[in-house]
């Protein structure tokens, strides 16, 4: 939204429509377009490794955005997001394998199925608040994990489910380059939808519920409806993200759908900045790239060679945790906030305000 950024002097808005634009200024819109263009040209420069990282950032960013919708924008902490992510992956594989639904349709359909499941778990959210809700969603995580391990008709049990690559009228999205473009389209669509949502009445209602739900209720905003809606939307996003992951890897298993992934997603939005659309992507990028960067740093310093250099492997783990702690100590409001501060400093230099 166009609020929250410092604008240049003399930039006056005279109509509502001007106030509600996606980008605060034409320059900002142009920058975004250029960035998108560069992204589309990325496969010329990056090899599979870089594309794989970007694809991972893409679908984790979508999942993080979903979590941000429910936690950052509506104020309900959810610790069960990974379960919905996994559900979407399994649902998409199941739809495309068992029912022959084309993959590109199965992905959004999986999202819808996940949203329905999310609505079921969102219903208690109307009554429970804050940290209690966090633990209730934690319970949902374990219950769904148990369901995945039991429902072999759905998940393929111990062997997991194989997911086919996406196929659009014979154009198979196999290989990193093609899948990268698919993910870019998905990211643009989902992020665009969320950004749009936040400038509509429903989006503002969600923010009102987060900021002061009593006042919101007094003003006539139905709390239960928006809380449940937020959960449903978040699950939809998680489901689509899971489906994207499933068809990229080609295999879905319950091994990686656990509480640690939920915590990691929460970490993404906290570090990226709660209540910020861009922050979701930044946080996902941080969580994906940071271990790689630490690993690369250790390699470059020649510390980890071939063979198990055990002491330093643990140092890598420790440094990842330390980076998270240090980051939060110095910037508790997340990357998005830091980005805004940097932009403001750049614009106002040498003045301070």
């Amino acid at each position, binding site marked *: 939204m166009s609020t929250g950024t410092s604008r240049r002097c003399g930039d006056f808005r005279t109509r509502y429509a001007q106030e509600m634009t996606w980008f605060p200024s034409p320059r900002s819109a142009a920058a975004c377009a250029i960035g998108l263009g560069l992204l589309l040209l990325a496969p010329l420069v990056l090899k599979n490794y870089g594309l794989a990282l970007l694809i991972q950032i893409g679908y984790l960013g979508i999942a993080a955005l979903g979590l941000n919708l429910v936690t950052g924008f509506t104020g309900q902490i959810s610790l069960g997001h990974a379960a919905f992510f996994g559900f979407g992956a399994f649902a998409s594989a199941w739809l495309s394998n068992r029912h022959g639904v084309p993959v590109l349709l199965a992905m959004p359909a999986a999202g819808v199925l996940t949203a329905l499941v999310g609505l079921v778990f969102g219903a208690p959210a109307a009554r429970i608040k804050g940290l209690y809700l966090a633990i209730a969603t934690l319970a949902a995580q374990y*219950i769904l994990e148990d369901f995945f391990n039991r429902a072999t008709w759905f998940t393929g049990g111990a062997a997991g489910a194989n997911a086919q690559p996406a196929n659009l009228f014979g154009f198979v999205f196999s290989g990193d380059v093609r899948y990268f473009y698919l993910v870019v389209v998905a990211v643009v669509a989902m992020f665009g939808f969320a950004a749009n949502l936040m400038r509509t009445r429903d989006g503002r209602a969600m923010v009102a519920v987060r900021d002061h739900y009593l006042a919101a209720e007094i003003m006539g905003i139905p709390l239960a409806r928006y809380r449940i809606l937020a959960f449903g939307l978040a699950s939809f996003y998680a489901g689509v993200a899971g489906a994207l992951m499933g068809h990229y890897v080609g295999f879905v298993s319950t091994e990686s759908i656990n509480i640690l992934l939920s915590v990691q997603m929460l970490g993404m939005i906290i570090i990226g900045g709660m209540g910020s659309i861009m922050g979701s992507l930044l946080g996902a990028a941080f969580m994906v790239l940071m271990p790689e960067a630490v690993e690369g740093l250790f390699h470059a310093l020649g510390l980890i060679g071939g063979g198990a250099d055990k002491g330093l492997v643990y140092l890598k783990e420790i440094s990842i945790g330390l980076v*998270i702690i240090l980051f939060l100590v110095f910037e508790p409001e997340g990357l998005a906030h830091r980005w805004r501060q940097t932009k403001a400093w750049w614009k106002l230099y040498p003045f301070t305000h």
Partner: protein
Amino acid sequence: MKSGLLLQFALNGLIIGTLYGMVAMCFVLVFKASRAVNFAQGEFLLVGAWLCWGFMSQLGVPLWAGFLLTTVAMALLGALIQAVVIRPLIGEPVISVIMVTIGLSVVLRGITLWIFGPEPKSFPGGSGGATVNLAGLNIEAVYLWGAGAAVIGMAAFAWFFKYSRLGLAMRATAFNQQVAQSLGVSIQRIFIVSWAISALVSGVAGVVVGVVNGISPGLSLFGIKVFPAVILGGLDSIVGAIVGGIVIGLLENLAQFVDGEYLHWGNLYVVAPFYALVLVLMLKPYGLFGTRDIERI
């Protein structure tokens, strides 16, 4: 119905429940005083167990001496963590503090892996040694000591919070930090003390669990089991934490009894506490003993 077997299950649940309650109590202590949810609680248990093992195997001291050394070390560790990691985040949204504790858990796990290695070890001198037979159930003596310590601890904390100056100061801080500060309570000291005590008690629990079940990096997952107990009892009630722990312990064991004898589903032991949790929260959103958040407009 096999009443003898049921009694054994109930007894086991009671004893294990007091252990859960002890860990839940640490959790609540930190929350009551500094409004921080400590996701690194499991790692505190792990560190406590490893420290005691380290003292015993490197210095060759017997269990009780290692135990005492561990309590001192854990208290210092708790204070250190509060000073270095948590204090900079006073006043920040609680979710940032949660994330920092998550980062802390990663760091602690890495450090214990580095110093002590990934292999599971058992305490020198065998596992808990003596077993006591209660109503046909063999229970390790260490558990009984642990349960006894938990009960004494609960009584001590109840007295502490009600009658001692420091305890009153802690309750005041939990109630309203600014008012307490304006009345002369040193918030810094309260925070340090609460984290130190929490770390100390977790270390004790960790030693008990480690002596019985062996120490391995997986011990930190014991902390996740505690969350249902804490929520069940209410996040800001010490008594609630112990009761919650006992309820969860009993529930798990009774679920296993029903599952083993009649239902044969296999998973009740793990999921029953969570289902129960969801049910309780639907009826009592603040847990059994939690204080109701009175909303003021």
